[in-house]
C-alpha cells in the first residue's frame, strides 16, 4: 500500500495495525524490514524549525508505484507499505515509512534499501526548510539511487 498524506502519523501504530490486517502474512513471512525517516532540527550545520514538503501529486503516485512494483518483482515481496508526508512538517515528525515483508532477511534488507534510495532519487518530492531566522532554503540533491549507494 502507498499513502501520501498531509497528516502526521505514528509509524509504530500504523505498522502494528497494518500487519494485523494483512492476514496473508501470517505464518508466511520470515522477515520484515522497516525504515522510518524522521525530521531533524538541524541540517548542514544550521538550526531548522520546520519544513514544507512539496510534490507533483500524479507523478509522485505513479513513480512510487513503479518503484514498489520493481522491488516486488526483484525480491518477491509478500507485501510492502510506503507512507510519505507532504505539506508542513516539524522536527521529530515522521516523514517516511517503508516496510517490506519477505520470506528471508536478505530480500527484506535489500528491498527496503532499494525502495528508499529510489524514492529519494526519482520520486518528485521537494523539501524547503524554514530556518531559525524564518528564512527559507530548498534542500539540495538527495542521492543517485540504489545502484550508486549499494554497499
Amino acid at each position, binding site marked *: 500500500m502507498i499513502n501520501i498524506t498531509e497528516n502526521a502519523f505514528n509509524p509504530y501504530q500504523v505498522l502494528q495495525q497494518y500487519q494485523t490486517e494483512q492476514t496473508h502474512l501470517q505464518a508466511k513471512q520470515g522477515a520484515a524490514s522497516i525504515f522510518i525517516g524522521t525530521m531533524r532540527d538541524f541540517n548542514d550545520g544550521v538550526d531548522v524549525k520546520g519544513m514544507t514538503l512539496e510534490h*507533483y501529486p*500524479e507523478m509522485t503516485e505513479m513513480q512510487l508505484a513503479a518503484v514498489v512494483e520493481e522491488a516486488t518483482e526483484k525480491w518477491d515481496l509478500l507485501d510492502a507499505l510506503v507512507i510519505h508526508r507532504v505539506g508542513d512538517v516539524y522536527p521529530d515528525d515522521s516523514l517516511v515509512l517503508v516496510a517490506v515483508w519477505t520470506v528471508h532477511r536478505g530480500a527484506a534488507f535489500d528491498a527496503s534499501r532499494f525502495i*528508499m534510495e529510489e524514492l529519494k532519487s*526519482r520520486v*518528485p518530492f*521537494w523539501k524547503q526548510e524554514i530556518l531559525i531566522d524564518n528564512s527559507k532554503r*530548498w534542500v539540495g540533491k*538527495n542521492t543517485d539511487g540504489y545502484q550508486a549507494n549499494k554497499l
Partner: protein
Amino acid sequence: MSIKVRYFASLKEFTGREQDECPYQPEMTAQTIWDFVVPEKKIPLNTLVAINMQYENLEATVADGDEVAFFPPVTGG
C-alpha cells in the same frame, strides 16, 4: 489543443508561476517549449523534465495535449 506546462519547487519560484499553456507546433521539444513559455530566462542547470509524468530529456519531442513539467532534483525521503 495545447501543451500544459507545469513548474515545481524552485522552478516555480524561478518562473514566478505554477503553470503555462503553450500552443502546440509539430516537432516541439521540452527545450523549445521552455524557450517559448519562459523566453526571458535560460533553463537552470540540473533541471529535470517529465513528459506525461515520465522522465525525459530536454530534446524529447512532445505531442499535442501532453503535460510537460520542469523541476529541480528531487529531495524526498
